[in-house]
């Protein structure tokens, strides 16, 4: 289970890093939807001089490292931090998809893939939580009262 999450975070990292590199090297991105240029050149693609893809790359890298820590240290605290980051990232992704669909009116493949990965990380992260860290018996008793 934890491996699935680690692989997803790694794929997200590749996706965001690719967009960041293209941003700084000034390339035109190969695109199947025809909307990548419109989205990645829009005013919403950067916060000041920082492209959103760079923030995304850091986010995926942090989550990737955090998940390896969870795997190594078996500490629930790390997993909770991961879930907290994911909740924020999920809301951010929703907002970015909204911008693509309703404000810019164009879709960018790489951005939609990233939104899909973040949604999967969040949903799977919640589903796997109690499987990776089962409740202790005493907590279960309290919970059932």
């Amino acid at each position, binding site marked *: 289970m934890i491996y699935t999450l680690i692989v997803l975070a790694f794929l997200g*990292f*590749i996706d965001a*890093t*690719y967009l960041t*590199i*293209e941003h700084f*090297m*000034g*390339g*035109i991105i*190969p*695109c*199947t*939807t*025809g*909307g*990548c*240029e*419109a989205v990645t*050149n829009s005013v919403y693609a950067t916060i000041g001089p920082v492209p959103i893809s760079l923030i995304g790359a850091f986010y995926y*890298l942090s989550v*990737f*490292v955090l998940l*390896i820590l969870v795997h*190594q240290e078996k500490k629930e605290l790390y997993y909770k931090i991961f879930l907290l980051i994911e909740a924020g990232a999920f809301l951010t992704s929703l907002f970015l998809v909204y911008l693509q669909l309703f404000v810019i*009116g*164009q879709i960018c493949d790489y951005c939609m893939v990233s939104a899909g990965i973040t949604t999967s990380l969040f949903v799977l992260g919640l589903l796997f939580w109690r499987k990776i860290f089962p409740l202790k018996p005493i907590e279960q008793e309290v919970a059932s009262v």
Partner: protein
Amino acid sequence: MSKTSLWAGVTVLVVGVVVVLMLLVKMSSDLGSGSAVSLKTALAATDWTRGSASSSKVTLIEYADFQCPACASYHPLVKELEREFPNDLLVVYRHFPLPQHKNAVMASVAAEAAGKQGKFWEMHDVLFEKQTEWSDVSDPKELFGSYAIFLGLNGAQFAADLLDPSLEAKVNSQKLDGVKNNVNSTPTFFLDGVRLVNPRSYASFKELVVDALEKADKSSSN
């Protein structure tokens, strides 16, 4: 596995991904034309061309969609090429309106209608330059009409031609022709019949044209 070697492995992996991606991006921007897919369709009498047909040594055929933002990004690059190689480069525009762009077919028809009055390329330029203005309107005919007036065309004739089914038929037949040549995205460029992997900067686009010119010079001197 010890903790140190695990984290060393993770670091190597992450740095490796960044380096490999940078190399890939760099390579694809340097390469330009990787695939030797040839264009099966020769120049037709109905093709719109810019440049000197008699003196030009190299032909650049573009399949494009007036509503596609990437095509609009390439528009100034192609114009710059035309400016830099006025005698050696023949530029051909072929319609390839994509289904997700609702006003693309109408825009192609507008360019053809302007072409009937001898101003295809002028309308072509305006459509790309003002792409964001007309892309999202529900009925762009009025805007296209205003561009026609701006270009000094006969407005009534232009409005009538917008409804001419033969123009839409021409647009569709060029698109079908593109499909036959395996065009599946826009813009798709063929330089002397060879399909280009879209260059990522003006410099690499120019380099491709210069290479093609050298090749043409060599083959003509042989």
